[in-house]
């Protein structure tokens, strides 16, 4: 049995998915991946303004100022007398970058680059998508070293990690 786990681990390591130690799986409090299904991950839409939680990069276009919300979307502000007024939040999971030309906003939806028509910010439209083109090599590892529940890509895209009790975990780094 141990040999089987070890060879599984070696297979995992060889394709770069995770690293393993030699031990048997543990049962306990470990990091567990949080998933978004592929269709949820692609759900891009305009929403009312939101408070900044984990503010990312900034951008300016016409009288609008933008700030990325790490992996969640884009805060849009209207600049009025040198003061940014909250205007919209554009939900784009996985977003870390943006650039605008004309009425088109280009951003990344995880590893895809999408074009959003922002001529009507109340209802942004996805105009195009280039799939699997922007790889940041973002690791699919939990925030702390130790045992964790292995990632199952059939469940969707990993968007975060949470600690859970009484979980069997074989992956470790």
């Amino acid at each position: 049995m141990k040999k089987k786990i070890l060879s599984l681990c070696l297979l995992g390591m060889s394709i770069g998915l995770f690293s393993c130690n030699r031990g048997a799986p543990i049962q306990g409090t470990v990091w567990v991946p949080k998933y978004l299904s592929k269709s949820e991950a692609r759900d891009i839409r305009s929403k009312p303004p939101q408070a900044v939680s984990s503010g990312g990069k900034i951008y300016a276009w016409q009288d609008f100022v933008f700030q990325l919300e790490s992996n969640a979307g884009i805060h849009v502000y209207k600049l009025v007398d040198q003061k940014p007024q909250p205007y919209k939040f554009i939900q784009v999971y996985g977003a870390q970058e943006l650039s605008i030309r004309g009425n088109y906003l280009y951003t990344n939806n995880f590893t895809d680059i999408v074009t959003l028509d922002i001529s009507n910010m109340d209802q942004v439209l996805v105009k195009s998508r280039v799939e699997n083109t922007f790889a940041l090599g973002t690791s699919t590892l939990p925030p702390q070293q130790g045992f964790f529940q292995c990632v199952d890509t059939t469940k969707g895209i990993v968007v975060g990690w949470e600690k859970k009790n009484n979980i069997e975990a074989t992956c470790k780094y």
Partner: protein
Amino acid sequence: MKKVIYTILTLVSLASLCGITSCSKDGYSEMSPSTGTGGSLARFTISGNYLYAVDQNALKTYRTNTDGSLNHVSTVVLGADIETIYPYKDKLFIGSREAMYIYKLNNPELPEFEQMASHVRACDPVVAKDNYAYVTVRSGNTCGGTVNALYIYQVDNLNYPQLLNTYSLHGPYGLGIKDNTLYVCDGAGGLRIFDVSNPSGATLTGTRAGYTFYDCIPYDYDNVLICMVDGGMVIYDISNPQDPVFQSQTF
């Protein structure tokens, strides 16, 4: 008379169409009124009709079409740990943890290597103006290295960038430039204001404290400096670029 009015109307509408799709021949992003302005930490930038994106190890070029679609037209593999891209005139300045690269856009579909400056291992955004490039290097866990500084390079007509000057800093992130004023976001050290009228003798003229500064964009609309800080954004009035005056924050 009606004909004349129609001609004028047609010309006006054509001109405004140019504003949207940009008819600029030279393709410089700063000359296109419809293209936005990014910060120095960006991995996406638009120059002319092209979107340039740097991911972990490559520079990718996409043609932007009027229907919103993108065509991926080239990939240039640069090496490990690419972090930032900054357009200036017909060039792209690219920051990695090992070096600053300059690519020229004679053929905008296939950026061509022009020159590079290796530096100590560190995180390093870059901005450029006239014949000078301004690079910050920051040390730390994710960046490596031990140096925190501003490097000023001369980058004209040379085979390699010539280092003119270095300034020690607290822990600098992004930077921005307006006319002869350079803003350096020095993390918890504050917003540093440099006079770069003479880049080889650049002088620190002031600091704005109170936030942890990560990046800033001098934006001509409304004469503002938009800063990304810990917590959100802060806006300064830079009618006098050397004297940023606090206006508002988003949090």
